[in-house]
């Protein structure tokens, strides 16, 4: 080996500094991982830079999403010399390791630059749309929602728990108790599957046409996200964003202020179908639908061809335990879900609810409890709507999947 002590020292410094560079770029690299990395470098035969890169990726990165950042940092950190001293004996003059700081700063600049860009646009949007404070009536409505949380859908747990009146005898526990009484069974222990909350999935349309109702809906979402486990929320307008973490913020006004930047992408209007398709195409998101009670908060005014929306809603309905459409338009007693898109998805829905404000949303828990174990696809029967002036629900055949002849006066036209 031609490597002098200085070169070896520098190689060691390069390697030891690499986890720090990743940390500076925002990856969660703790000392234990860094130590594993150094052990790995000693263990793996390093014949090329790619070998080093692989050993680093396996030990320092814990998630698939972080790979691009890792690759970028790796290139910046090691790439100046095509094969640094760690890999082959060096024979040229090296730059002092302090030069590396430059790269690290460059990486940080790139990443922070991006972040501050995001902040700036958030500020800009915040300027455009700020939420008001909570009115007294709404505060009371939230309180009432809080008291009816018990009505929200549940599921019996997989795991058994001891219970005084369970349906099954807990043999293990009975035996353990009997051992305390010299093997004599004095009392039977029971066990049961306790109820646990079923997942609620909220898909909220925040496009321009929903502007007037977004605040109430997001307050509702914030409230139940805080009050109950297993609530997932996504907002969509022109693009889709998962807002569950933001909604977990303790203070409602703060949570909503943060959402304002994230969510309000007004221009362009809704592409409900495309947004829902996008939602389903990410398997990590789509898996949240399975077994959940899904609430879609939208007026359903899809522009253009509703085929994509119908397809996506159909699939969401199949994956969900129950699917409820919450539309602010349903506040009008004359509302009929008769636009092409709404008429086509109607057979998939379990109910259509009024979403025009917190006072209306207050009735949701009760509706959900009614829908939870009822037959599927009963939106029509359940509807408070009257079709063609009749009091009774129409025959199934009256709702044509792509029917365009049903256009009563009260139904607004899709915006274009």
């Amino acid at each position, binding site marked *: 080996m031609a490597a002098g002590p200085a070169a070896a020292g520098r190689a060691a410094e390069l390697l030891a500094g690499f986890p720090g560079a990743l940390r500076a770029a925002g990856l*969660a690299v*703790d000392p*234990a*991982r860094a130590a*594993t990395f150094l*052990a*790995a470098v000693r*263990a*793996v*035969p390093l014949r090329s830079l*790619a*070998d080093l890169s*692989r*050993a680093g*990726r*396996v*030990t320092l*990165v*814990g*998630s*698939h999403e972080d*790979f691009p950042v890792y690759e970028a940092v790796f290139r910046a950190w090691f790439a100046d010399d095509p094969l640094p001293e760690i890999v082959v004996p060096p024979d040229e003059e090296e730059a002092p390791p302090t030069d590396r700081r430059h790269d690290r700063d460059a990486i940080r600049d790139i990443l922070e630059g991006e972040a501050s860009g995001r902040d700036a646009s958030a500020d800009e949007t915040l300027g455009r749309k700020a939420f008001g404070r909570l009115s007294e009536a709404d505060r009371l409505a939230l309180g009432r929602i809080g008291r009816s949380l018990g009505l929200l859908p549940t599921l019996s*747990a*997989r*795991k058994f728990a001891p219970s005084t009146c369970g349906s099954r005898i807990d*043999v*293990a526990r009975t*035996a*353990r108790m*009997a*051992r305390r009484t*010299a*093997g004599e069974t004095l009392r039977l222990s029971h066990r049961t599957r306790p109820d646990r909350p079923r997942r609620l999935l909220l898909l909220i349309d925040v496009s321009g046409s929903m502007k007037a109702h977004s605040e109430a809906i997001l307050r509702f979402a914030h409230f139940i996200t805080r009050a109950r486990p297993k609530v997932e929320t996504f907002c969509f307008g022109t693009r889709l964003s998962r807002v569950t973490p933001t909604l977990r913020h303790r203070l409602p006004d703060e949570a909503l202020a943060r959402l304002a930047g994230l969510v309000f992408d007004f221009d362009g209007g809704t592409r409900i179908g495309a947004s829902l398709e996008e939602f*389903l*195409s990410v*398997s*990590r998101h789509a*898996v949240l639908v399975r077994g959940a009670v899904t609430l879609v908060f939208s007026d359903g005014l899809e522009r253009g061809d509703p085929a994509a929306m119908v397809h996506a809603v159909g*699939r969401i309905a199949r994956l969900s335990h129950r699917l409820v459409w919450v539309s602010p338009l349903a506040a009008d007693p004359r509302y009929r879900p008769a636009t092409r898109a709404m008429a086509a998805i109607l057979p998939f829905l379990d109910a259509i609810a009024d979403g025009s404000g917190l006072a209306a949303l207050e009735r949701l828990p009760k509706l959900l409890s009614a829908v939870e174990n009822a037959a599927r696809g009963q939106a029509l029967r359940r509807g408070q709507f009257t079709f063609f002036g009749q009091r009774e629900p129409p025959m199934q055949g009256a709702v044509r999947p792509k029917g365009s002849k049903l256009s009563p006066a009260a139904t607004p036209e899709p915006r274009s």
Partner: protein
Amino acid sequence: MPSPLTHDALDAALAGAGYFADETLVTALYLALELGKPLLLEGVPGVGKTEVANTLARILKRRPIRLQCYEGIDATRALYDWDHARQLLHVRVAERARPVETSDLYAEKFLIEMPLLKALRNAGSSVLLIDEIDRADDAFEAFLLEFLSDYQISIPELGTVRAAEPVITILTSNRTRELHDALRRRCLYHWIDYPERARERAIIERHAPGIAGEAAERLVEAVAAIRRLPLIKRPGIAESIDWARAAEVLNRDGAPWPEALKRSLGLIVKDQEDLDTVREAELI
């Protein structure tokens, strides 16, 4: 723990056993053996995550021990349980002869070993697979931490059971749920992707040896094209092997290759809507 095989020997042995791993996976496995750390494998379903552990067990001539995770799995399913019925009987029988000590009841013979304990006690002769960890709940993940970092488990009645050497442990996740960082931190990590063409072809020729050269090429091409379509469930390697085998059977019965592939399409695409999409695309 020094690895029983060198990096390159491991690569060759995996290929010899019919598992064509990409280079990073070989590095990951080698490091898992050499450093004695668990390896977390993530990836979409059907890319051979579980098979890694089985193959590794085969080439190391160790016994695979599998812990299948599910929602609600707990310590008594994963670790150990006491054989309560036997304990009760023992008390009944023994008290006729002599007074019974409680310590008699927590003897080895009443202990039922579940996979984790079995792996700890046979660390030198087993490969532990903790399959689909994302199906278990968070609490179970936390429960695994002691095992994964120190290869030991505390049993209140018996004390701490510690493995004589690091247990070769492979965890898999389909990513239906985000795993906690505390768990990730204790593991080496590798993401298994769909294989590139050449590797997929090697896999298919290995597992469906009857498929002829041109047909194999065509099949691999079709599979790659199908994966590019917007499907509900994109086919994994397991599906493409099944497809190759089925087409092979049909071909042997006299159907020409394109026809055989077309007729067995249901083995690679298993959803009505996806089938329509694939048929419309006319790939085959």
